[in-house]
Protein backbone atom coordinates (compact mmCIF):
# COMPACT_ATOMS: atom_id res chain seq x y z
CA UNK A 1 0.00 0.00 0.00
CA UNK A 2 1.33 3.42 -0.83
CA UNK A 3 2.13 5.75 2.07
CA UNK A 4 -0.32 8.37 0.85
CA UNK A 5 -3.23 5.94 0.88
CA UNK A 6 -2.24 4.75 4.33
CA UNK A 7 -2.45 8.24 5.75
CA UNK A 8 -5.41 9.72 3.92
CA UNK A 9 -7.22 6.79 2.34
CA UNK A 10 -10.46 8.70 2.48
CA UNK A 11 -9.14 11.31 0.07
CA UNK A 12 -8.95 8.74 -2.70
CA UNK A 13 -12.66 8.04 -2.56
CA UNK A 14 -14.83 9.35 -5.36
CA UNK A 15 -16.78 12.49 -4.49
CA UNK A 16 -20.27 12.02 -3.17
CA UNK A 17 -21.76 15.17 -4.63
CA UNK A 18 -23.45 15.32 -7.99
CA UNK A 19 -22.73 18.27 -10.24
CA UNK A 20 -26.07 19.90 -9.50
CA UNK A 21 -25.28 19.86 -5.80
CA UNK A 22 -27.72 17.15 -4.71
CA UNK A 23 -26.00 14.63 -2.54
CA UNK A 24 -25.99 11.01 -3.62
CA UNK A 25 -25.60 8.09 -1.26
CA UNK A 26 -22.63 8.26 1.05
CA UNK A 27 -19.78 6.57 -0.85
CA UNK A 28 -18.83 3.19 0.45
CA UNK A 29 -15.71 3.01 2.57
CA UNK A 30 -13.34 0.41 1.18
CA UNK A 31 -9.83 -0.69 2.01
CA UNK A 32 -7.00 -1.02 -0.47
CA UNK A 33 -5.45 -4.43 0.11
CA UNK A 34 -1.76 -5.26 0.23
CA UNK A 35 -0.70 -6.33 -3.24
CA UNK A 36 2.34 -7.18 -5.29
CA UNK A 37 2.81 -7.08 -9.02
CA UNK A 38 5.51 -8.99 -10.88
CA UNK A 39 6.42 -9.12 -14.53
CA UNK A 40 7.78 -11.94 -16.62
CA UNK A 41 8.25 -12.09 -20.39
CA UNK A 42 4.85 -13.70 -20.88
CA UNK A 43 2.64 -12.38 -18.14
CA UNK A 44 1.94 -10.12 -15.19
CA UNK A 45 1.58 -11.83 -11.86
CA UNK A 46 -0.63 -10.13 -9.30
CA UNK A 47 -0.74 -11.26 -5.68
CA UNK A 48 -3.33 -9.68 -3.40
CA UNK A 49 -3.73 -10.26 0.33
CA UNK A 50 -7.45 -10.67 1.08
CA UNK A 51 -7.73 -12.14 4.58
CA UNK A 52 -11.21 -13.37 5.43
CA UNK A 53 -12.49 -13.27 1.88
CA UNK A 54 -14.15 -16.41 0.52
CA UNK A 55 -14.61 -17.28 -3.14
CA UNK A 56 -18.26 -16.26 -2.98
CA UNK A 57 -17.43 -12.78 -1.76
CA UNK A 58 -14.80 -12.09 -4.38
CA UNK A 59 -15.40 -10.19 -7.56
CA UNK A 60 -12.73 -9.86 -10.22
CA UNK A 61 -13.44 -7.99 -13.39
CA UNK A 62 -11.31 -6.92 -16.30
CA UNK A 63 -12.72 -4.11 -18.37
CA UNK A 64 -11.04 -2.00 -20.99
CA UNK A 65 -7.85 -0.90 -19.35
CA UNK A 66 -8.94 -1.63 -15.81
CA UNK A 67 -8.56 -4.63 -13.53
CA UNK A 68 -10.77 -4.34 -10.49
CA UNK A 69 -10.90 -6.60 -7.49
CA UNK A 70 -13.51 -6.41 -4.77
CA UNK A 71 -13.59 -8.68 -1.75
CA UNK A 72 -16.26 -8.91 0.90
CA UNK A 73 -15.34 -10.52 4.19
CA UNK A 74 -17.13 -13.81 4.78
CA UNK A 75 -17.19 -13.53 8.55
CA UNK A 76 -19.59 -11.56 10.63
CA UNK A 77 -19.44 -11.22 14.38
CA UNK A 78 -22.13 -13.43 15.99
CA UNK A 79 -24.80 -11.43 17.82
CA UNK A 80 -23.86 -12.67 21.29
CA UNK A 81 -20.17 -11.76 20.99
CA UNK A 82 -18.73 -8.59 22.49
CA UNK A 83 -15.87 -6.80 20.87
CA UNK A 84 -13.07 -6.09 23.36
CA UNK A 85 -10.30 -4.90 21.09
CA UNK A 86 -10.19 -4.44 17.36
CA UNK A 87 -7.44 -3.80 14.85
CA UNK A 88 -8.86 -5.27 11.67
CA UNK A 89 -11.29 -3.40 9.45
CA UNK A 90 -14.61 -4.89 8.40
CA UNK A 91 -14.88 -2.76 5.25
CA UNK A 92 -14.63 -4.60 1.92
CA UNK A 93 -11.37 -4.67 -0.01
CA UNK A 94 -11.19 -2.77 -3.27
CA UNK A 95 -8.30 -2.62 -5.68
CA UNK A 96 -8.33 -1.02 -9.09
CA UNK A 97 -5.36 -1.18 -11.41
CA UNK A 98 -5.09 0.52 -14.76
CA UNK A 99 -3.29 -1.21 -17.56
CA UNK A 100 -2.48 -0.25 -21.12
CA UNK A 101 -4.36 -3.08 -22.84
CA UNK A 102 -1.38 -5.36 -23.23
CA UNK A 103 -3.27 -7.98 -21.23
CA UNK A 104 -5.00 -10.87 -22.94
CA UNK A 105 -8.36 -10.80 -21.14
CA UNK A 106 -9.35 -14.24 -22.47
CA UNK A 107 -6.46 -16.00 -20.77
CA UNK A 108 -6.60 -14.49 -17.30
CA UNK A 109 -6.50 -17.05 -14.52
CA UNK A 110 -7.15 -16.44 -10.85
CA UNK A 111 -6.83 -18.57 -7.74
CA UNK A 112 -7.90 -17.78 -4.18
CA UNK A 113 -6.31 -19.75 -1.38
CA UNK A 114 -5.99 -19.00 2.34
CA UNK A 115 -6.85 -15.35 1.84
CA UNK A 116 -4.35 -14.82 -0.98
CA UNK A 117 -5.52 -14.12 -4.50
CA UNK A 118 -3.12 -14.90 -7.32
CA UNK A 119 -3.99 -13.57 -10.74
CA UNK A 120 -2.04 -14.33 -13.86
CA UNK A 121 -2.54 -11.75 -16.58
CA UNK A 122 -0.91 -13.02 -19.78
CA UNK A 123 0.36 -10.46 -22.23
CA UNK A 124 -1.07 -10.39 -25.70
CA UNK A 125 1.11 -11.99 -28.35
CA UNK A 126 2.05 -8.76 -30.04
CA UNK A 127 3.52 -7.30 -26.83
CA UNK A 128 5.64 -10.27 -25.90
CA UNK A 129 9.36 -9.84 -26.47
CA UNK A 130 10.36 -11.53 -29.66
CA UNK A 131 13.63 -13.06 -30.64
CA UNK A 132 14.63 -12.17 -34.13
CA UNK A 133 16.75 -14.62 -35.99
CA UNK A 134 19.68 -13.02 -37.74
CA UNK A 135 20.42 -14.28 -41.18
Amino acid at each position, binding site marked *: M*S*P*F*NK*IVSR*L*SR*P*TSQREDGTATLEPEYTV*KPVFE*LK*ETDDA*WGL*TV*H*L*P*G*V*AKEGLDLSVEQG*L*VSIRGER*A*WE*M*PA*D*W*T*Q*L*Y*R*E*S*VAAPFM*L*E*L*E*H*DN*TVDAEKIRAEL*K*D*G*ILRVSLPKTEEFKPRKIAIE
Partner: protein
Amino acid sequence: MQLNGAPSNRRNKIMNRLIRYTIPRVSPFRGTAIGNSWSGLESEVDRLLEAALADYPKQATPRFPVDLYEDKDNLYVRAELPGVNREAINLELVEGYLSLNASRKTGEQTFNLARSIVIPETVQSDKVTAALEHGVLTVTLPKQEQAKPRKIAISVN
Protein backbone atom coordinates in the same frame (compact mmCIF):
# COMPACT_ATOMS: atom_id res chain seq x y z
CA MET B 1 38.54 19.78 4.31
CA GLN B 2 36.83 17.65 6.88
CA LEU B 3 34.32 20.35 7.55
CA ASN B 4 33.38 20.44 3.92
CA GLY B 5 33.05 16.66 3.72
CA ALA B 6 29.76 16.26 5.49
CA PRO B 7 27.61 18.77 3.58
CA SER B 8 28.85 17.58 0.19
CA ASN B 9 27.99 14.01 1.13
CA ARG B 10 24.57 15.16 2.03
CA ARG B 11 24.20 17.03 -1.23
CA ASN B 12 25.21 13.92 -3.12
CA LYS B 13 22.55 11.97 -1.30
CA ILE B 14 19.91 14.51 -2.19
CA MET B 15 21.05 14.58 -5.80
CA ASN B 16 20.90 10.79 -6.00
CA ARG B 17 17.39 10.91 -4.72
CA LEU B 18 16.36 13.55 -7.21
CA ILE B 19 17.80 11.51 -10.03
CA ARG B 20 16.07 8.39 -8.78
CA TYR B 21 12.68 10.03 -8.71
CA THR B 22 12.86 11.69 -12.07
CA ILE B 23 13.10 8.32 -13.82
CA PRO B 24 9.53 7.27 -14.65
CA ARG B 25 8.41 3.90 -13.41
CA VAL B 26 8.20 1.46 -16.26
CA SER B 27 4.89 -0.18 -15.53
CA PRO B 28 1.62 -0.06 -17.45
CA PHE B 29 -0.24 -0.45 -14.14
CA ARG B 30 -1.04 2.39 -11.84
CA GLY B 31 -2.92 1.95 -8.61
CA THR B 32 -5.44 4.66 -9.21
CA ALA B 33 -9.18 4.65 -9.16
CA ILE B 34 -11.07 5.68 -12.26
CA GLY B 35 -12.24 9.28 -12.34
CA ASN B 36 -10.02 10.05 -9.40
CA SER B 37 -8.98 13.66 -9.46
CA TRP B 38 -6.57 13.05 -6.60
CA SER B 39 -4.43 10.58 -8.50
CA GLY B 40 -1.89 13.10 -9.71
CA LEU B 41 -1.45 14.62 -6.28
CA GLU B 42 -1.45 11.19 -4.76
CA SER B 43 1.52 9.92 -6.74
CA GLU B 44 3.33 13.19 -6.08
CA VAL B 45 2.78 12.91 -2.33
CA ASP B 46 3.76 9.23 -2.44
CA ARG B 47 7.04 10.21 -3.98
CA LEU B 48 7.68 12.86 -1.37
CA LEU B 49 6.79 10.52 1.47
CA GLU B 50 8.93 7.72 0.07
CA ALA B 51 11.83 10.13 -0.23
CA ALA B 52 11.33 11.35 3.34
CA LEU B 53 10.94 7.85 4.77
CA ALA B 54 13.77 6.28 2.78
CA ASP B 55 16.29 6.89 5.55
CA TYR B 56 14.31 4.97 8.17
CA PRO B 57 14.76 1.21 8.42
CA LYS B 58 11.64 -0.85 7.83
CA GLN B 59 10.02 -2.67 10.74
CA ALA B 60 11.76 -5.96 11.34
CA THR B 61 8.71 -8.14 11.93
CA PRO B 62 5.58 -6.89 10.23
CA ARG B 63 2.56 -6.68 12.49
CA PHE B 64 -0.69 -8.26 11.50
CA PRO B 65 -4.10 -7.15 12.75
CA VAL B 66 -5.46 -8.95 15.79
CA ASP B 67 -8.98 -8.70 17.27
CA LEU B 68 -10.26 -9.79 20.65
CA TYR B 69 -13.86 -10.79 21.36
CA GLU B 70 -15.77 -12.53 24.10
CA ASP B 71 -19.09 -14.17 24.75
CA LYS B 72 -20.34 -15.66 28.00
CA ASP B 73 -18.29 -18.86 27.69
CA ASN B 74 -15.23 -18.02 25.66
CA LEU B 75 -12.67 -15.45 24.68
CA TYR B 76 -11.84 -15.28 20.99
CA VAL B 77 -8.71 -14.01 19.30
CA ARG B 78 -8.88 -13.44 15.57
CA ALA B 79 -5.72 -12.75 13.58
CA GLU B 80 -5.40 -11.97 9.89
CA LEU B 81 -2.74 -14.27 8.49
CA PRO B 82 -3.26 -14.57 4.73
CA GLY B 83 -1.12 -17.10 2.94
CA VAL B 84 0.08 -18.83 6.09
CA ASN B 85 -0.04 -22.62 6.31
CA ARG B 86 -1.50 -24.42 9.31
CA GLU B 87 1.86 -26.06 9.97
CA ALA B 88 3.60 -22.68 10.02
CA ILE B 89 1.54 -21.36 12.94
CA ASN B 90 2.80 -21.71 16.48
CA LEU B 91 0.56 -20.80 19.42
CA GLU B 92 1.67 -20.60 23.02
CA LEU B 93 -0.18 -19.57 26.15
CA VAL B 94 2.19 -18.46 28.89
CA GLU B 95 1.20 -16.55 32.02
CA GLY B 96 -1.69 -14.63 30.57
CA TYR B 97 -0.04 -13.98 27.23
CA LEU B 98 -0.99 -15.65 24.00
CA SER B 99 1.97 -15.61 21.67
CA LEU B 100 1.39 -16.11 18.00
CA ASN B 101 4.26 -17.05 15.73
CA ALA B 102 3.83 -17.69 12.06
CA SER B 103 5.81 -17.69 8.87
CA ARG B 104 4.67 -16.97 5.36
CA LYS B 105 6.48 -18.41 2.39
CA THR B 106 6.43 -16.40 -0.80
CA GLY B 107 8.49 -18.16 -3.39
CA GLU B 108 11.93 -18.51 -1.83
CA GLN B 109 11.40 -15.78 0.74
CA THR B 110 10.09 -16.49 4.23
CA PHE B 111 8.56 -13.81 6.39
CA ASN B 112 8.28 -14.25 10.12
CA LEU B 113 5.26 -12.84 11.86
CA ALA B 114 4.93 -12.60 15.62
CA ARG B 115 2.50 -11.03 18.07
CA SER B 116 1.87 -11.37 21.75
CA ILE B 117 -1.58 -10.64 23.15
CA VAL B 118 -2.55 -10.12 26.78
CA ILE B 119 -5.44 -12.38 27.68
CA PRO B 120 -7.51 -10.29 30.10
CA GLU B 121 -8.71 -13.15 32.29
CA THR B 122 -7.81 -16.67 33.24
CA VAL B 123 -8.81 -19.31 30.75
CA GLN B 124 -8.84 -23.09 30.71
CA SER B 125 -5.50 -23.38 29.03
CA ASP B 126 -5.90 -27.09 28.26
CA LYS B 127 -9.07 -26.50 26.25
CA VAL B 128 -7.83 -23.84 23.85
CA THR B 129 -8.66 -24.55 20.22
CA ALA B 130 -7.78 -22.80 16.97
CA ALA B 131 -9.12 -22.81 13.43
CA LEU B 132 -7.82 -21.27 10.23
CA GLU B 133 -10.27 -20.16 7.57
CA HIS B 134 -9.67 -17.95 4.51
CA GLY B 135 -6.42 -16.74 5.99
CA VAL B 136 -7.95 -15.72 9.32
CA LEU B 137 -7.00 -17.59 12.48
CA THR B 138 -9.60 -17.87 15.25
CA VAL B 139 -8.40 -18.99 18.67
CA THR B 140 -11.10 -20.01 21.14
CA LEU B 141 -10.13 -19.74 24.81
CA PRO B 142 -12.76 -21.14 27.20
CA LYS B 143 -13.20 -19.08 30.35
CA GLN B 144 -12.70 -20.57 33.80
CA GLU B 145 -15.91 -21.77 35.40
CA GLN B 146 -15.84 -19.12 38.14
CA ALA B 147 -15.39 -16.34 35.61
CA LYS B 148 -18.68 -17.14 33.90
CA PRO B 149 -21.74 -15.22 34.98
CA ARG B 150 -23.90 -17.50 37.04
CA LYS B 151 -27.64 -17.62 37.31
CA ILE B 152 -28.99 -19.07 40.48
CA ALA B 153 -32.64 -19.92 40.65
CA ILE B 154 -34.15 -19.15 44.02
CA SER B 155 -37.50 -20.54 44.74
CA VAL B 156 -39.75 -18.30 46.78
CA ASN B 157 -42.11 -20.06 49.09
